[in-house]
């Protein structure tokens, strides 16, 4: 199994809002443990408002008020054991144990990264393609100027002078026509703009690319082209892609492993095959069974009830008001993750007593 490149420990990120003098807390990410490995496509799926985007912001170390990191850790492995990357990071004061771990394992908690270190890691270690990213391009400059700006602010020395050549080469390598560099964003179709943005995010060969709904609001043919580009980048650079999308069809097509998110929590995680063929959590089962399939017109049922509010999430397991198998304990207590096998874990009272490992 390949090594972990990014992990979280009991991550909690809440929006703390001030509404008419009263504090309102939106528990968007509530106790998430992730373990994302090198050279894999990790998909995160769930309905809108379940905290997917917030989780990505935390992973990308882009937490800004009103979003606050309430608890837990996000840990980057910036270099493999022993060797520190070419450019040592400027770090904030950290306890000796943390420093030792950084020096030996190359692992670092993002809480200890200075703003400068975060900036340096961004685009080189981790790239974030936000939602609606086809509108991030500056409408009044040609794309080559956008590329030049980008390279100049992140690369120093010799490569800087070759910025334009680098961009051109990169574009050609990913199979996009090089004449687009002379175009203004509005001259390109939405799908092309989306692909240009993704190509830009991959320009400095980051080890992790985080994509937030990169295929949403695109037509199916265009969507396929975008997915094709993502896959190509992943295969060429052997990096890690974290892909958030509610479209299970896209997940089935690209992801190696999928985490199902519900009300700020990961409720089930498994390989893509297992999620689609043998889901365990009742929510995942509804999600998979409700998908219309070609060649099969049998009746599909939606998940009953309504999505939960993250301001007042239901007690215990947040899915209990909609769950057909609800028991007393579900209302009272949130179940821990239980490993069904090495790659399959689920948070549900239907397996084990909620102790880790029971049922495996």
């Amino acid at each position, binding site marked *: 199994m390949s090594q972990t490149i990014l992990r979280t420990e009991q991550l909690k990120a809440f929006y703390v809002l001030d509404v008419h003098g009263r504090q309102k807390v939106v528990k968007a990410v509530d106790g998430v443990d992730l373990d994302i490995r090198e050279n894999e496509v990790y998909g995160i799926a769930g*309905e809108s408002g379940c905290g997917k985007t917030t989780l990505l912001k935390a992973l990308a170390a882009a937490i800004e008020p009103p979003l606050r990191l309430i608890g837990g850790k996000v840990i980057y492995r910036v270099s493999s054991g022993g060797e520190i990357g070419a450019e040592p990071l400027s770090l904030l004061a950290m306890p000796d144990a943390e420093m030792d771990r950084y020096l030996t394992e190359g692992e670092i908690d993002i809480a200890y990264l200075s703003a400068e270190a975060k900036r340096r890691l961004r685009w080189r270690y981790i790239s974030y393609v936000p939602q609606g990213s086809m509108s991030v391009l500056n409408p009044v400059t040609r794309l080559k100027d956008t590329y030049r700006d980008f390279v100049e602010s992140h690369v120093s020395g010799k490569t800087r002078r070759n910025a334009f050549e680098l961009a051109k080469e990169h574009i050609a390598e990913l199979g996009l026509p090089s004449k687009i560099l002379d175009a203004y964003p509005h001259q390109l179709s939405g799908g092309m703009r989306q692909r240009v943005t993704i190509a830009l995010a991959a320009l400095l060969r980051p080890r992790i690319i985080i994509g937030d709904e990169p295929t949403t609001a695109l037509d199916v*043919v265009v969507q*396929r082209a975008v997915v094709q580009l993502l896959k190509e980048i992943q295969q060429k650079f052997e990096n890690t892609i974290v892909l958030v999308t509610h479209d299970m069809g896209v997940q089935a097509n690209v992801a190696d492993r999928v985490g199902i998110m519900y009300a700020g929590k990961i409720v089930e995680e498994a390989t893509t095959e297992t999620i689609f063929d043998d889901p365990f959590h009742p929510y995942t089962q*509804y999600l998979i069974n*409700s998908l219309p399939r*070609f060649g099969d*017109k049998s009746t599909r049922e939606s*998940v009953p009830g309504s999505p939960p509010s993250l301001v007042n999430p239901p007690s215990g397991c947040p899915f209990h008001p909609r769950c057909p198998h609800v028991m007393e304990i579900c209302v009272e207590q949130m179940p821990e993750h239980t490993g069904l096998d090495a790659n399959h874990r689920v948070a549900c009272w239907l397996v084990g007593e909620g102790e880790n490992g029971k049922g495996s």
Partner: protein
Amino acid sequence: MEKVLEVDQLTKVFSLGSVLSRVKITATDHVSFYVKPAEIFALAGESGCGKTTAARMILGFEEPTSGTVSYSGRPAARHEKVWLTKGVQAIFQDPFGTFNPLRTVDRYFFETVRNYKLAGSKKEAIGFIDQKLQAVGLSFDEFSGKYPSEFSGGQLQRISISRALLTNPSLLIADEPVSMVDASLRMSIVNLFKKLKEELGVSVLYITHDLATAYYVSDRIAIMFRGNIVEMGPVEQVLMDPQHPYTRLLRESIPEADPTKRWSGVVRLTEMEQEEYLRQGCRFAGRCPHAMDMCKRQVPADVQVDDLLVRCHKYAGN
């Protein structure tokens, strides 16, 4: 055969640009189709294929450049607002945009009841509204006095459908009714259309880009591409055994929820937006794997292949 809705040679041309450099874009180009009673007819295609323009013309929001819309065999007069008649009701894409956020949703219901004189007293009206809400799985007590923000997208969309049912329409025109609804709740809306068709005999013109739900719910389907209907027929045939090269591309590009069926092969896209609208001949010729010389010069005619209507040179002359 009676037709609830018949659209004949509907064309809409938009002009873009200034007086000096005028570009004419044909948003819908001689589109003809009909909807039978108690039938779900899907009008599907990618964005910019003209499906929404067609819907707007059918509803009377937009004046067609040429062509006619007939409703139950009667042609709509110029400037007639079909959506104000009892028989046709519309459901729109964004359920949050349908209702004024500062008004309680029940007021829309009472207003419709009053406008069409559907009930004589308030008590009668409540009973009537409750009955329509039951049809979509809600009740009057659940919804009275509430504002749109107190409902989820799926609930609001069902309320919107229930409001449309107040006048006992024979045709619902639904423009992308599920695209803004959460994936987990989408099927509840689509199942509702099926139920309305089966139990009340309502026809639905289901306009969508989502071929998977179109396959699931509809009886017949028309695939639009850059203003033309390129293929039309029973949904089972069009989507399971597509004839037109564009339909094939579309069908192959739908991500299936099955990890064993991943995409292979490379797709080609156009880089510039307007190119395909302004193309002479068949508008798909630039991307078509079967393109012949003729395709680039001449607009293909409709060809009947068994039950299907296909607009492609490949099938002409057979």
